[in-house]
């Protein structure tokens, strides 16, 4: 049962598809960067910026906005692309990704792009920052706080011990408006997460730390929306949404292949396409996917 209309779902799917095309284009233009994670998280970012979060692209410093704290900064192409599509800055600026002087640094830097909530890249610190923000807000507003603090983190990133320090404290402090979204895509740079450093049951781990836990299909807008609504309704504990996603989602020759974690189209594995074909093929795949979305491109 979803509170999203068919039209809204359709609109979100089309927006996510356009964001994925922007991600491919900006990575090609940059000649380096991460591909799999940004494509995999495009649906969740789309939902947050086009429905899930209270925010105002025309007034990025609006005090009462919800905060999105990106912990795994390397997936910033999806953050930048989504922000541009939401109206924070012109779409053309996306082409400057990773270029000298660009506001769109290879990993997010708040001094270059002040509308970001945090700088990130070195893994494992975002959850602590989101927790600090939520605690600061509680000093001012107590449990009456109307803001939500979304921390977006990756599964490989949970190898970092600092996350578990923050998870313990979030639980101790019963930070009800902290919503952690884990990109459970099962890959990290060197391989599959369960080969590199098994996380086993993330659900059981978070439950043991007294988090409210939900597991969802991270590409299903109804599930994304419902889980975020449920997390917002939780009153006395922090929430985690374990979002099962497909790395490289939307471009079949990239999907589920950890070798696409940290390379752009044009520099990826050549199992299906030569390097010089990868960009065009990726865009083709996404365009044809757009045509398959049930309501068509409006």
């Amino acid at each position, binding site marked *: 049962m979803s509170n999203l209309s068919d039209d809204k779902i359709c609109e979100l799917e089309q927006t996510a598809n356009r964001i994925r095309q922007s991600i491919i284009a900006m990575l090609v233009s940059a000649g380096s960067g991460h591909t799999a994670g940004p494509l995999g998280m495009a649906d969740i970012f789309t939902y947050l910026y086009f429905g899930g979060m209270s925010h105002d692209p025309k007034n990025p410093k609006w005090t009462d906005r919800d905060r999105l*704290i990106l912990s795994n900064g390397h997936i910033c192409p999806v953050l930048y692309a989504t922000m541009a599509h939401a109206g924070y800055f012109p779409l053309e600026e996306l082409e400057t990704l990773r270029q000298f002087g660009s506001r769109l640094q290879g990993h997010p*830097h*708040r*001094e270059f792009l002040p509308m970001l*909530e*945090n*700088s*990130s*890249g*070195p893994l*494992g*610190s975002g959850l*602590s*920052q*989101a*927790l*600090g*923000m*939520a*605690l*600061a*807000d509680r*000093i001012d507003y107590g449990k009456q706080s109307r803001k939500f603090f979304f921390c977006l983190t990756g599964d490989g990133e949970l190898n970092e*011990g*600092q996350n578990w*320090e*923050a998870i*313990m*404290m979030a639980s101790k*402090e019963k930070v009800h408006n902290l919503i952690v979204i884990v990109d459970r895509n099962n890959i990290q740079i060197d391989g599959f997460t369960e080969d590199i450093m098994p996380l086993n049951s993330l659900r059981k781990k978070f439950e043991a730390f007294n988090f409210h836990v939900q597991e969802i299909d991270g590409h299903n807008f109804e599930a994304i929306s419902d889980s975020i609504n449920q997390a917002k309704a939780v009153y006395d504990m922090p929430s985690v949404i374990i979002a099962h996603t497909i790395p490289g989602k939307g471009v079949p020759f990239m999907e589920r292949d950890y070798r696409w974690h940290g390379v752009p189209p044009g520099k990826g594995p050549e199992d299906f396409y030569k390097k010089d074909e990868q960009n065009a093929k990726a865009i083709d795949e996404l365009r044809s996917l757009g045509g398959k979305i049930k309501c068509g491109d409006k």
Partner: protein
Amino acid sequence: MLITEQKLRKDIFDEKNESVAIRVGFGLGLLEAAKKDERVVGLCADLVESTKMEDFAKEFPKRFFEVGVAEQNLASVASGMAAMGKIPFISSYAMFSPGRNWEQIRTTICYNDVPVKIAGSHAGISVGPDGGTHQAVEDIALMRVIPNMIVISPCDSVEAKKATLAAAGNDKPVYIRLAREATPLITTEETPFEIGKASRLFESSKTKNSVTIIATGALVFNALRVAQKFEAEGVGVIVINLSTIKPLDKKTILEAVKETKAAVTVEEHQIAGGMGSAVAEFLAQTFPVPMDFVGVNDVFGQSGKPQQLIEHYGMGEDSIYNAVNNVLRRKHD
């Protein structure tokens, strides 16, 4: 002689001078800062009493957070709070914060450029019996290489209080280095303090000044005692208290060094990368003079009594005295 305008304590050189741990001044300063400004919050990694955050924690329980033994989380939670407009002070032993959480300080505090104040207690070798694991003699180096960071190493408890208050009123990341042991009081409430300003505490009234000692932290006291000894021997020595190590007060240093044409730096820290290195980096480019460095020379400490360790590792009064003589000889070679 002691410089009158600095309004230093009169009993500095008395046998029975008063000693208070530098960290005590931090505790007093934090409490006062918190009373003045409700944005001030405190976070501690399971060392509330020994880092002197306890009075603040009792007075402002809603603005105090016990993070547990988790220094990385300590730094980044504070970063998040600062991003929301708070002025967080975080405290632990210097060995663990900024020792263990350096990258979190670099990325989540300094790269974000948010005003988190890091109080590193139990810095230096004078931690004593706890041994080398707990003696942070690398922290100045770790902190001064990070852009946006201000580094302060107060010489006594009174100055530590002022530094804490000044840090609370400053919108940058600040590292305040504190020591465990009782340290003789040098300054008074009236002694001027300003972040970024070094102060000349001692100079000869009778003879030409021929060496500048630039000291920081608890060893400023030793430097003053050595300067007094030289004055009695007819050798003029200037002593500068370099309480702010970054940004460096180039003007005060240069004025003194141009006068003496020789310099000795004194710190309870590794010679490599510490305060002396900061001074040398500056002087080498502007006014190179014979220099000597009093500090820990690329070794770890061990258990012992504070004074015993200070002497053993070459930071006692005799070592400073020899360093001054050394630069005097080189100046005349």
